[in-house]
């Protein structure tokens, strides 16, 4: 029969088929056509078409539009249950893969959780103050011959000026850095870190009172505010308002009354102090160097929310300039809460700091997670060869692509969830060890943020790890899967190889990066700074030690284990610095900052400083206080030739140069050696310092303690070690070094796990091939080489890619140090070889097993 009737618009039909519920699409379409024909016959084709369109529009109503999901009206819970059971069965069936994935993901998720805890701790540091948005610390930029130095210190006199003349500043406080002082009460004496702060302190910083009123807690010179923990140490109770105690430092001491007790500081504080004393007392009674040229104060301000900080900085800078009579420094505001993470300044410009480590570890976390996900993807695509039949049959039976995808996503998410649970348990049990390694006080509190992070992790892992199998497998065509002889996965092998290469490349980068950090830290810790810091102990000169110094030193020198003893003002990092030195030929623009160290008889000898010219201080020469010793750098920078006997102007009077010592680094190796000088001021030396013989440290210190007790029964004996002080300078780098070495080890572990899974799978799949090869006369060794070569190629490629990258990254990190190692090519070669060896070791057992199977075994069933 000839079809002469006009047809309804195809577009509209297609549109209808798209939106209509497939359940009723066919019969409704039939009805539509029938009606179209009828109308066409009765009213003509235009009317028919118009009505057709109208009918279709009217069909767009809830009962007819296709539902979003499960068009087959399956119970979705049943479907989920089904997928769940399948997942469990798959886990059981491929035990190896399951265990490898679980191990890998658990390790990765625990690492990520640890890093998250650590990063979180860093990010929250100093963020608990309610004023944090408008809370600033004043900092000063000091221009000198080598560029601009940025310091936290400002003249203490500035506080009152700011309060009086800068209306944008709502609150301002002056304080000092925390220092260890001796506190005593009745017969109890303890050492505790404390600082001086002016009245507004508690209005600016957020601290909770246990007892007492914080608003007026620092108004009197004899007020002291202590933490609950310190109160317990001193009084055994926290209810101690109004109790008396005594504070001691060097030649001063002060009777104090407890005015308030505050809660212990949270672990997220950057400055741990246990007590606060009045700034008034410090400023007016204690220091004798009040002046606009001395930067002994730390000033924090809270600005009005609408104030422009640049303008405020300028105003304050103006005040300083007027008072100093010249533009010697630039004052600027730095957000107090940001200072912990952004603590480095280069030439007066903020240039990172701890935030770099935070970012580094976030990167490491992402890398580790990536490696674990790659494992999962690799193993499941390798498995896919087995699963294709399953997919084909399911599709034949009418499974939609979406339902297949959901199965794979459920599988990976479930695995992620399982790993998360194990990882949380692991993190929870290993936290004390982690805290010990990272020297942090990270607490593991399951809160909503952690819950969210965990869920985000599981979802990331689920989606990232499940995506490839989900999209790839579900997209397979039924025919090509079920028809025998059709080869699948042609490109798949390459994708898998790329993933393995990426994985190993990341692991190698992490390892060689760690190696470089470790090398540099070793170099820093062991390099000869020009003075002896091994086995040098020091403690503060207090109590009777102030008067009976000579007797004490003499008695101490008699202890057999003590090699040398003296009082000294030497401190690692430099005690004081000054620009107040004038010399012959000093030019107007010369600005040299010298480190100033006060010495007594024998101070420099204890440190083992090498003398280049002249002599060291000695009591045989009478009045040494008119004399000065410089280091090499100082002489060079001042441009003095033949310095011995020349006179320089010190701010306390003229001094004659009697000696030049070899350069030694008083600060960290981050910085170049600074110019330094030494003055003979025995009465102002804060410490007793002693060099102890090797091997008898414990016994000697014990003897010193007994002797100390006989002089100073009321003071706690607390010796410090110079090398520990030095190590503390690199604390944050050491942390990075230790933590990153653990994470690098984990990264390679996870990569090897993945490799192990892959090789297990490949050897299984190639069993028949191996059998046939052996039948045809191939030896075990040849087969091992054959299989190993596959993996070796990938690992070598990974190494080739990774090494240059890690070299560049390492160079950038080393730029932080003024004195640094030069990375040697053979370290990288070593890392490469180690990675290769690891991968060989990983595959060896499986390869050997596969290669030594009797061909009769592998070929018998077919």
């Amino acid at each position, binding site marked *: 029969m000839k079809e002469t009737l006009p047809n309804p618009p195809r577009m509209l039909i297609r549109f209808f088929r798209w939106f209509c519920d497939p359940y009723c699409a*066919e*019969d*409704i*379409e*039939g*009805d539509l056509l029938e*009606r179209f024909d009828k109308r066409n016959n009765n009213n003509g084709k235009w009317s028919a078409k118009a009505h057709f369109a109208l*009918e279709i529009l009217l069909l767009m109503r809830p009962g007819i539009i296709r539902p979003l999901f499960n068009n087959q009206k399956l119970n979705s819970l049943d479907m989920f249950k089904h997928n769940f059971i399948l997942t469990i069965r798959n886990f059981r069936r491929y035990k190896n893969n399951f265990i490898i994935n679980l191990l890998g993901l658990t390790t990765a998720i625990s690492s990520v959780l640890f890093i998250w805890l650590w990063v979180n701790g860093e990010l929250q540091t100093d963020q608990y103050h309610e004023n944090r948005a408008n809370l600033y610390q004043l900092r000063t930029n000091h221009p000198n011959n080598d560029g601009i130095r940025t310091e936290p210190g400002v003249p203490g006199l500035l506080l009152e000026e700011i309060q009086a003349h800068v209306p944008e500043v709502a609150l301002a406080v002056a304080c000092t850095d925390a220092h260890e002082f001796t506190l005593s009460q009745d017969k109890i004496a303890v050492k505790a870190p404390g600082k001086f702060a002016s009245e507004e302190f508690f209005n600016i910083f957020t601290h909770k009172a246990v007892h007492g009123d914080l608003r007026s807690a620092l108004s009197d010179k004899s007020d002291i505010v202590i933490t609950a923990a310190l109160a317990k140490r001193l009084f055994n109770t926290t209810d101690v308002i109004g109790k008396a105690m005594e504070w001691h430092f060097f030649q001063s001491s002060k009777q104090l009354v407890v005015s308030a007790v505050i809660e212990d500081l949270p672990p997220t504080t950057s400055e741990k102090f246990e007590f606060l004393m009045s700034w008034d007392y410090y400023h007016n009674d204690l220091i004798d160097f009040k002046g606009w040229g001395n930067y002994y104060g730390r000033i924090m301000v809270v600005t009005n929310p609408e104030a422009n900080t640049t303008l405020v900085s300028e105003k304050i800078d103006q005040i300083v300039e007027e008072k100093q009579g010249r533009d010697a420094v630039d004052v600027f505001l730095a957000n107090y809460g940001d200072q912990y993470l952004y603590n480095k300044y280069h030439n007066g410009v903020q240039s990172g700091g701890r935030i770099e480590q935070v970012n580094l570890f976030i990167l490491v976390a992402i890398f580790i997670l990536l490696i674990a996900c790659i494992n999962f993807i690799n193993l499941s695509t390798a498995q896919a060869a087995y699963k294709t039949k399953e997919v084909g049959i399911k599709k034949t039976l009418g499974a939609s692509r979406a339902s297949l995808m959901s199965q794979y996503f459920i599988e990976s998410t479930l695995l992620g969830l399982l790993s998360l649970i194990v990882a949380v348990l692991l993190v929870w049990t290993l936290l004390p060890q982690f805290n010990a390694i990272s020297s942090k006080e990270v607490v593991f509190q399951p809160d909503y943020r952690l819950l969210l992070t965990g869920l985000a992790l599981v979802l990331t892992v689920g989606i990232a790890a499940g995506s490839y199998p989900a999209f790839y497998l579900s997209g397979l065509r039924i025919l090509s899967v079920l028809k025998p002889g059709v080869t699948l996965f042609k490109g798949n092998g390459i994708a898998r190889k790329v993933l393995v290469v990426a994985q190993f490349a990341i692991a190698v980068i992490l390892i060689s990066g760690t190696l470089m950090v470790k090398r540099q830290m070793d170099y820093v810790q062991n390099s000869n700074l020009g003075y002896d810091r091994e086995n040098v102990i020091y403690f503060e000169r207090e109590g009777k030690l102030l008067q009976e110094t000579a007797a004490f030193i003499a008695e101490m020198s008699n202890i057999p284990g003590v090699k040398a003893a003296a009082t000294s003002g030497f401190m690692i990092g430099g005690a004081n610095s000054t620009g107040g030195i004038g010399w012959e030929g000093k030019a107007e623009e010369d600005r040299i900052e010298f480190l100033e160290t006060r010495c007594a008889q024998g101070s420099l000898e204890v440190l083992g400083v090498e003398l280049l010219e002249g002599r060291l201080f000695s009591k045989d020469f009478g009045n040494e206080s008119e004399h000065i010793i410089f280091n090499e750098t100082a002489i060079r920078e001042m441009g003095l030739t033949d310095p011995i006997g020349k006179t320089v102007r010190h701010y306390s009077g003229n001094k004659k140069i009697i000696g030049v010592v070899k350069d030694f680094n008083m600060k960290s190796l981050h910085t170049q050696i600074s110019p330094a000088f030494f003055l003979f001021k025995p009465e102002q030396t804060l410490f007793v310092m002693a060099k102890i013989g090797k091997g008898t440290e414990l016994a000697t210190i014990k003897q010193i303690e007994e002797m100390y007790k006989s002089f100073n029964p009321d003071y706690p004996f607390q010796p410090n070690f110079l090398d520990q002080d030095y190590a503390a300078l690199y604390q944050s780098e050491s942390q990075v070094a230790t933590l990153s070495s653990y994470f690098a080890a984990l990264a390679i572990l996870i990569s090897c796990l993945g490799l192990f899974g892959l090789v297990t799978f490949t050897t299984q799949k190639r069993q028949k091939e191996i059998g046939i090869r052996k039948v045809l006369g191939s030896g075990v060794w040849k087969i091992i080489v054959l299989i190993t070569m596959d993996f070796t190629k990938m690992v070598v490629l990974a190494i080739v890619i990774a090494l240059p990258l890690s070299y560049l990254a390492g160079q950038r990190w080393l730029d932080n140090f003024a004195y640094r190692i030069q990375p040697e090519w053979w370290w990288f070669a070593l890392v490469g070889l180690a990675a290769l060896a690891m991968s060989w070791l990983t595959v060896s057992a499986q390869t050997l097993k596969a290669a030594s199977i009797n061909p009769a075994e592998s070929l018998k069933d077919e």
Partner: protein
Amino acid sequence: MGKNQLGEFEEVVMLTVAILYGEAYGFAIIEEMEKRLNRKVSIGALQTVLRRLEQKGLLESQLGEATKVRGGKRKRFFMVTNMGRKVLEEAKEQRMQLWNAIPKIAFNDQ
């Protein structure tokens, strides 16, 4: 059976399906309704109601054989189920009760 209260349109559709016994598919139902009741019915309106009634269990449906007409699309034939019959009868009874309860006088003085 209070829950299965039928709407007016629903009732008409069910009655039409019953009338067309064995031949009740979408197009035929519309034709029948337009012929008998002289009202315009869109496919969308009808299909939604059919769907709903089927879900409620008052109608059941079956696909017929494919034929050459209507583009080879199969027809879906609807039947009133036993439950559907009961509901229809109930509705009818209720109406009758109401009719019977009207006092004669009410409609007399028109």
